[in-house]
């Protein structure tokens, strides 16, 4: 995280831009007692985030993306298009890659969420993170955490042999700086060393 970013976030928090929580209410309508509570307003949602139990008090309409960034201070996951089209918010839910903007945090009570912050071990980068640096696989860097979270899964699934196959496997991650050849090279590097 750059100093700039810290300053911007601190400003936003002092300025009160971070959403205030809504009043909490849980009630069951007559005749639907077995349907569980209808949650109308903020409630506690607990997930295992990067290996640690975390709880956020959030309204039902909070996406997993906003919850990670605004409530749990995990800002490595980026908000690009906010409609599932760019992949900047790619994280893992129970080990599967997902767009964090396309799902509600409240739907993932108890699940394991993994973000880019969990990949490195201190200063010891994940091999794909190192390969991105070595291959110059980003320019502005905004899509990079999503590219890497997606790419690690592609490596686990087995890297497609053809360039077209690899492009297809990474099609959910858009790079406006168009570093695609370098991103593919980084993936091939790691697969080759695997």
């Amino acid at each position, binding site marked *: 995280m750059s100093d700039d970013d810290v300053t911007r976030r601190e400003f936003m928090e002092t300025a009160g831009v971070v959403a205030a929580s809504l009043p909490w209410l849980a009630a069951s309508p007559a005749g639907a007692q077995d349907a569980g509570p209808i949650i109308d307003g903020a409630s506690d949602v607990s997930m295992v985030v990067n290996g640690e139990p975390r709880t956020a008090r959030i309204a039902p309409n909070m996406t997993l993306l906003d919850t990670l960034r605004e409530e749990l201070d995990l800002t490595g996951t980026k908000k690009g298009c906010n409609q599932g089209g760019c992949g900047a918010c790619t994280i893992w839910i129970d080990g599967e890659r997902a767009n964090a903007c396309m799902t509600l945090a409240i739907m993932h009570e108890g699940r394991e969420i993994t973000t880019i912050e969990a990949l490195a071990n201190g200063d010891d980068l994940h091999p794909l993170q190192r390969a991105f640096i070595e291959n110059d696989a980003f320019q502005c860097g905004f899509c990079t955490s999503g590219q890497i979270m997606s790419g690690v899964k592609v490596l686990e699934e087995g890297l497609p042999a053809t360039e077209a196959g690899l492009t*297809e496997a990474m099609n*959910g991650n858009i790079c406006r700086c168009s570093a695609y050849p370098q991103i593919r090279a980084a993936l091939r590097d790691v697969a080759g060393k695997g």
Partner: protein
Amino acid sequence: MLNFAYARPDSLEAARALMRETDGAAFIAGGTDMLNRIRDGVDAPDILVDISRLDLDGIDFDDARLSIRAMARNTAIAADDRVRRHFPLIADAIEAGASPQVRNFASAAGNILQATRCPYFRDAASPCNRRDPGSGCSAIAGESRKLGILGVSAFCIATHGSDLAVALAALDAQVITMPTSGGRRVLPIAELHRLPEGTPEAVTNLEPGEMILRIEVPRVSADLRSAYVKTRDRASFGYALVSAGVALDVADGRVRSARIALGGVAPRPWRATAAEEALRGVSPSGDAIRAAAALSTAGATPTDDNRFKIDLTRRVVERALAEALA
């Protein structure tokens, strides 16, 4: 995003009771279409009823049918060995759509119930008969290049965007549902979506609160030849300009039956019945395929913007037939 309440019933019966007794309730499964609809201001449910953890996941297979349960994820369906072996059309269609991130969470039922595509429908500031009945159609006089040419009306020309639904239409699938009144109902996939006619706001023939439980695909022939061909404006991760799913039953060098479904051209998966008829009993040559493909757009009513889709559809059908027979 507009706020809403949330409930996660722990049984089908509880979900049914909730839908029956609550106004303004809508299901959420994978969420990959629903959340964009809410963000776009197209849908405004009072309560989202989360069915993603109900016992509705998985794929069953026997001699008579493939049964895809409502919550089966697109990735899991496309990766299933039985699906790939017996119904490769389904796997091919799924893999031609969206991205791995979306397919990992998009459910089978949610996929085929996704809202029809039209930029004006998604833009709450534009008049749209489907979103706001009687307000007019912005697309017909506007930008309609990507929109429909078959089954459209003077009120709506939106297209259905599901690749999976095209494959299911070509395979004569049916959906098994649970109405809020109880029991079960069977709907052929061809009767799931309505044509817009004068009431484009009515999109499906499901009753309010009715839940799809599973999608069944009959096994009619051991040796079905199929292909899915999709064209779009970019190489990957885009909705179809035109797509075609074909399933051919060929014996002794002759086509016993042909089923051809089109995507990207109509408000629902569109069966090209005239082209199917033309292939029945025919020994499939290049000429016979071309002649049949030419019938695939019978009845089309394009706009000036999307007239190109007539020729494109015929070419896509021709290629799909040729690939299936190769």
